[in-house]
């Protein structure tokens, strides 16, 4: 592929070290996590049982455990992680702010508020209804962010401040909503901390219809994000309409965040962490950074979910607590040494 060659020859020094090898290593790591996920849980299966469980159908025990519980949950984790990783990469790129993240910019809380409202209003709402509500919330959050922070000059500081304000406001309303309806208290904890408890095929089906197009759009927009990073005037001169592109990128980030929220609740730090991890491997070219962030996010969330299941087995802790436990120190490091 010519573009890959160009990027590789164009990359000096630490920029992109063997991107193909690292991509393969990432996919391999994800496969290993996947295998471990199929093997471990309330019951332990051998690698052979786990793999045959993938194809067995639900007549056998391993087929039931793997095919109906562990495999869909793993796919959910991969999709949630990829969505958050890409959303984070888009936000960091469009704001030129290394602390860009769906949580910090309020998109997570906006999607969460919409889906929590749907559940509180109509407790029997089907999963696709929650997914739809979350998407509406994510898009709405992106719209508010654009209007508040982007009219006129680009200001990362203004965007971060607006995001933090939105995040606090929506977060407070979510907690108020959930605490006023006592029956939800048990599931609310998983939602607020972010977790994949009980995530199944239904969850996957509910978000796939808009997550896959949004991921495709993100990859397609990543080239324009490169041009946009040269500044508004240069971008306009190269035929990229700056504000329109920003709005599109924010909208895609909002939808991807919504997909993650609809399935896993308010998972934090994945969107922040994944692009930074990906940058070491893929460099700063967004055409490589965006897919690499998807892979990094998928690895992070699926690994965190595995740990969350095994740490206090047979019970489990919300996966979001693991990502926060890793993410918070990294954020502290970035604030102190990088930002």
């Amino acid at each position: 592929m010519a573009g890959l060659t160009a990027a590789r020859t164009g990359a000096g020094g630490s920029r992109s070290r063997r991107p193909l090898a690292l991509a393969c290593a990432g996919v391999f790591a994800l496969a290993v996590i996947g295998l471990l996920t199929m093997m471990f849980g309330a019951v332990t299966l051998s690698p052979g049982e786990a793999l045959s469980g993938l194809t067995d159908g639900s007549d056998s025990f391993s087929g039931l455990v793997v095919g109906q519980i562990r495999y869909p949950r793993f796919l959910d984790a991969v999709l949630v992680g990829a969505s958050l990783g890409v959303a984070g990469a888009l936000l960091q790129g469009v704001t030129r702010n290394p602390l860009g993240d769906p949580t910090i910019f309020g998109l997570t809380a906006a999607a969460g508020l919409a889906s929590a409202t749907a559940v509180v209003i109509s407790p029997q709402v089907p999963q696709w209804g929650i997914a739809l509500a979350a998407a509406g919330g994510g898009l709405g959050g992106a719209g508010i962010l654009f209007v508040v922070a982007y009219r006129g000059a680009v200001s990362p500081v203004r965007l971060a401040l607006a995001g933090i304000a939105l995040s606090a406001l929506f977060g407070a309303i979510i907690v108020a909503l959930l605490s006023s309806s006592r029956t939800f208290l048990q599931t609310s904890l998983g939602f607020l901390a972010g977790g994949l408890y009980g995530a199944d095929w239904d969850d996957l089906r509910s978000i796939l219809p808009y997550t896959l197009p949004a991921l495709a759009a993100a990859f397609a927009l990543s080239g324009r994000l490169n041009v946009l990073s040269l500044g508004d005037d240069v971008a306009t001169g190269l035929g990229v309409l700056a504000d329109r592109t920003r709005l599109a990128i924010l909208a895609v980030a909002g939808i991807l965040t919504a997909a993650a929220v609809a399935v896993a609740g308010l998972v934090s730090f994945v969107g922040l962490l994944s692009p930074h991890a990906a940058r070491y491997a893929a460099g700063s070219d967004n055409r490589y950074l965006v897919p690499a962030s998807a892979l990094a996010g998928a690895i992070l969330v699926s690994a965190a979910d595995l740990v969350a299941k095994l740490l206090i087995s047979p019970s489990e802790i919300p996966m979001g607590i693991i990502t926060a436990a890793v993410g918070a120190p990294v954020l502290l490091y970035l604030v102190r040494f990088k930002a």
Partner: protein
Amino acid sequence: MRLTVERLSLRYNGRDAVRGVSLDLASGELVAIVGPNGSGKTTLLRGMSRLLKPVAGHVLLDGKEIHAIGARGVARRLAILSQIHAEGADLTVRELVWRGRSPHQGILQRASAPDHKAVARALEATDLHELADRPLASLSGGERQRAWIALALAQQPRVLLLDEPTSFLDVRHQVDVIALLQRLNAGGMTVVAIIHDLALAGRFMQRVIGMRDGRIAFDGPPREVLRPKPLEDVFGIPMTVLEDPESGLPVPLPRYPADASRRPTSAPEGGA
């Protein structure tokens, strides 16, 4: 490619920066725009390139209104190099130049054979082949300016607009950049550059446009317009024009400091 400006008025920062300017640039012209700070040169350039929407009037590329052509369509025909380039410091020269292909590429920005050719040509024209894999931040001012020009060249424009391409460069690099513009022009490209150095404009450009208060004050070949009277009208200070002994071309010089040294106590009046 003909660039026509018809009674163009532009606002910038709430000010009427360009007032009813009309211009006709034939294909293959080499033009300098001169004038004092705040005379509307940069705003005019931005208006000519779709960076700024006009309050009134039109800009036409081969008879077509640029705002009707669309951003990508204009970017394939016309390139603009603005003045300040703080961005992109972490990119290598080659990565920067590749981004100039963006208006020619599809949504996935897959590189095609013409893309590779255009990038190689842009690097060659700007003599940057050896520096291609160095990060921009490690280059000198003159080299970085050439890298940004290479980005514009990768667009393969028929019209190239440059805002002060020679400012902040030493005299050798100024001449290097001007010589590059002359070569591009010899290849058929229309080149319009804002230049503050009047001697440079007089010596190397075919046509000089002087601006004052958002209007065109003079417009013509250097020999005809770079004379004391038109220059004094534009810059508001007394001017002398010498003659380059080699080419006979005009070399304008300000007289003001000499006068001031003769009248050390009087207040300067140029800024009033």
